[in-house]
């Protein structure tokens, strides 16, 4: 890891990843062991993702990492480290996770609820615009 690198997210043991496909798409997990340049063993004992080999193509690296996770740790150890670091809470409080949750919520809204959102957004826009105009004057 040269010091002048611009990269901050690495495929490394302890890296928290977001799954993009498969039955656990949308869940996060932790890299427990790197198999090769295509796959890693991931584990999510606190997020419902069973230990499995997973291709890098189907996951996204997050900025979170579980510090000092030993290489090839079993599910129990991973769970201990993840809980200690508060990784899940950190993920859930991140803007990324919140945006995902909001998008998911929006997708399940009914027609009437979508209409109400539109009304509220309109009123917010109106208030902001008026406040900006008042501040400018």
């Amino acid at each position: 890891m040269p010091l002048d690198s611009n990269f901050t997210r690495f495929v490394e043991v302890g890296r928290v990843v977001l799954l993009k496909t498969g039955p656990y798409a949308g869940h996060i997990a932790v890299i427990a062991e790197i198999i090769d340049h295509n796959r890693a063993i991931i584990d999510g004992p606190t997020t419902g993702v069973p230990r499995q080999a997973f291709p890098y193509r189907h996951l996204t690296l997050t900025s979170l990492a579980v510090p000092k996770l030993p290489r090839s740790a079993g599910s129990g150890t991973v769970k201990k480290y993840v809980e200690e670091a508060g990784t899940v809470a950190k993920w859930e409080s991140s803007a990324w996770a919140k945006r995902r949750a909001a998008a998911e919520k929006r997708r399940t809204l009914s027609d009437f609820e979508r209409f109400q959102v539109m009304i509220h957004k309109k009123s917010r826009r109106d208030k902001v615009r008026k406040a900006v105009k008042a501040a400018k004057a």
Partner: protein
Amino acid sequence: MARKELVPGIGRLSRSQVYARRQLYKGKKTGTAPAKPEAAPTKEVQVKGSKNGGSRLVPTSKAPRYYPAEDVPKPKQSRKTAKPTKLRDSITPGTVLILLAGRFRGKRVVFLKQLESGLLLVTGPYKVNGVPLRRVNQAYVIATSTKIELGDFKADVKYNDSYFSKSEKKRTRSAEDEFFEDGKPKEKESFPESKVADQREVDKVVLAAVKKTEYLAKYLKASWGLSKGEYPHQLVF
């Protein structure tokens, strides 16, 4: 039995097999029709001429002089009957529907009841979005999950299919002649007063229920449409 068809028009079993399975040899089971007074097979006719015996017995109905040489094939009797239209499960009285066709397409309306013909009776309400009491086909409608609490309100039985049918008028002359009868266009007929009253009566209940929920009247007034990147099959209604 023979109802299972190999291909349309050809049953699985032959006529005699069906006969055996249905045990038709026992005789057809039918209800007894009320006995008609039997007409006399013959009647007495007076015959003129002294040598003809005065009167003769003649059959009341003459035997036909002509018999067809070949059997006339009878057309196959259809056993199909039209089933009443099934109302979609998602549509119950008070459901907000989105109309997709007709002059009110895009409007959100309130479902009242299903008519005998299978069409849906809906109302705007008229005061809210200008949609009157109207019949629509459920195929051209999106049912939303929004329901208006109508309580035990039931649309009157008088709102049936004939309520919406136009009165049949006999045209004697061409439509143009009739329209310009006195040299100027005919006055537009006013909407019947009774229908205005009906609309008001039905909408009274619906409007009262609509007012209970915030933004609901505004929602019904607004039209529905798709914008970029919105696909109806991916939306939740």
